């Protein structure tokens, strides 16, 4: 037991438990759903996870600073719809321009959130509850009750969702999945090695101490919201590539899956603690659950939301009760180990 303690931190124990749960879930659904272990299931789940995880990265940055962004669903929907209509109107827009347009629009929406939170000093929950409605309202007004249909999009967008990077046996890794993994690796490195990443943790841990230490807190929070918006924009583009048919209610309610992914992945809602790997695992679990529930015939897919709510509550409750106890256990064992080492 003590050897175990030496090699793992409590946070890693949680991540291991998540991996274990994901495997259990996959095995369970394998017995319940016919033809579950096929390439198609893998593609479906991995693409769904890819979109959730990109948004979850952005949400992680915001939650680390002790804020929250619940407008993500509206930003994803807006960018998907807006870029979709632009591509439908001008079929000759270059792919890179389309992606940059999506990221830029998302970043602009994140900028508004960030300014209101960091400089307007309005609590983030209120700002994003408001912008959740505002962005969706603008979208509905702008759309004029039309939808984006696959026929009108240029061919490369439609092909994008079936493009492979590589395959292992039957398992195809789509380009979108690769993109999401690149995002995960980038933000893992950023949070671990770049000063900006460390400052996010510092602000979330203790905002007053961070300010006294001379960190430009407002700017750091602002940038976190802008990055979150930009990632939502990217996810919006991926959403467009995946579904091709976009209505005005696209990605409505996505904030729930994303919040569940982040919280289940161990990013503390009180700020200052959490890892990118955790968020990735959380997103994987939520994506797996959502996609499998749709095809599981025993209970209706309407269970999805109730389960998401329950998972968030359990994860937060577990964080408060179990993780604190684990951390104490670790701290105590370190105390016990200290005199032993002196004797040697």
């Amino acid at each position, binding site marked *: 037991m003590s050897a175990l303690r030496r090699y793992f931190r409590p946070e890693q124990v949680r991540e291991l438990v998540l991996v274990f749960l994901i495997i259990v879930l996959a095995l369970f659904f394998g017995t319940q759903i016919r033809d579950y272990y096929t390439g198609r299931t893998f593609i479906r789940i991995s693409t769904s996870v890819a979109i959730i995880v990109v948004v979850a990265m952005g949400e992680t940055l915001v939650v680390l600073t*002790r*804020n*929250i962004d*619940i407008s993500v669903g509206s930003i994803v929907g807006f960018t998907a719809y807006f870029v979709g209509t632009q591509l439908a109107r001008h079929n000759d827009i270059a792919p890179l321009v389309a992606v940059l347009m999506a990221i830029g629009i998302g970043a602009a929406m994140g900028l508004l959130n960030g300014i*209101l939170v960091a400089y*307007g*000093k*309005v*609590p*983030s*929950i*209120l*700002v994003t*509850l*408001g*912008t*959740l*409605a*505002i*962005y*969706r*309202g*603008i*979208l*509905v*007004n702008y759309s004029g009750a039309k939808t984006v249909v696959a026929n009108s999009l240029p061919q490369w967008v439609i092909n994008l969702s079936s493009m492979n990077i590589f395959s292992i046996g039957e398992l195809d890794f789509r380009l979108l999945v690769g993109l999401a993994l690149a995002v995960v690796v980038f933000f893992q490195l950023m949070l671990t090695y770049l000063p900006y990443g460390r400052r996010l943790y510092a602000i979330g841990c203790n*905002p*007053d101490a961070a300010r006294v230490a001379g960190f430009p807190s407002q700017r750091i929070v602002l940038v976190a919201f802008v990055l979150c918006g930009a990632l939502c924009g990217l996810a919006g583009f991926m959403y467009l590539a995946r579904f091709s048919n976009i209505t*005005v209610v696209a990605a409505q309610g996505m904030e*729930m899956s994303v*919040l*569940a992914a982040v*919280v289940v992945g161990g990013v503390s*809602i*009180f700020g200052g603690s959490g890892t990118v790997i955790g968020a990735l695992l959380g997103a994987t679990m939520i994506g797996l659950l959502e996609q499998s529930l749709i095809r599981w015939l025993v209970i*209706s897919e*309407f*269970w*999805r*939301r*109730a*389960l*998401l*709510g*329950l998972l*968030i*509550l359990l994860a*937060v*409750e577990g964080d*408060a*009760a179990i993780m604190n106890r684990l951390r104490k256990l670790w701290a105590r064992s370190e105390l016990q180990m200290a005199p032993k080492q002196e004797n040697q």
Partner: protein
Amino acid sequence: MARSATSPAGGRNLLLGAWERLKSWEGLLLGVLVVIVIINSLQAPAYLSIRNQTNLFQLFIEKIIVALIMTFILINGEIDLSVASVMGLAASTLGRLYELGVPIEAAFLIGLAVGIACGLLNGFMIAYAGLPSLVVTLAGMIGYRGLAYILLEDRFIGNYPEWFSRLGQQPLIGPFPLALVIFFVLLVGAIIVLQYSAFGRYVYVIGNSREVARYSGVKVRRVKMALFIVSGLVAALAGLLYAARLGSVRGSVAEGFELDIITMVLMGGVNMYGGAGSLYGVLLSILIILNLRNGMSLINLTGHVQTGVIGVLLILSVLAPNLARNIQATLNRRRMRHLAGTLSEAQESP
């Protein structure tokens, strides 16, 4: 979201200052209300008739009823995002039970009990497990709505007994339907409890500083628990009244109502961090939102756009006082600097 209890020196001055600020905020609300009403009545001549105004209230009566208890919770320094989902869950429970052949009276009571159960769960997590209300009720908002969807999936449940539908639609006393009567009773009760009772004082004290309240012997946990249970009960009641008014129930009943409800309360001058605010301000802001929504319908704005406008109001109602305070602070600082400058000049010159 660091909660800072601002308490500058001088208790009496603080009280007076808060009263002045509130008075001016309420004055501003009154002005806005008058402007909206004038614009609306220019658009439609029958606007100010009692029937139209009663109709107005009736269209939003469920949200208004919940806004009353939300005022208590926000003044207490907490938030309840789950109210709309509790409304939906209570209504869906009624629909499902009625579908299974349970008499409507029993289904109504069980719907109320479900609301109390939701409030108990929220309250326990917040008051005794010590979790932030934001997270608990966010999970509740998602989870309770999910339960409502499980109960009804995508079906409509209608065809209630005639008296039940009439309850929601027909006038009961004079021109007022039952829901409106309930609202006025609750309003009077809420004003008495919040402004004139010991419990109301506890709500403010806890909102100002939880620590101070605890050391003064206020049973903080019990007050919070009571508030969330009542919130669940009132939300369930509102949900059931909504079902009676609509005449049919589905899983998505009252979805998104929390935005309007919280906006009503915050725009009424209730402090997001607790400790300040009054029901009079909330009442004014309710009237503003009712008339504004009605006016927006008059000029044919769709529901999503209306919700967007409410979102703008929500942000502005917190942003505007912040900005005003910032500007005042800058002005004060400049005045002090100016004063210091003239003083030092005066000292140097002789």
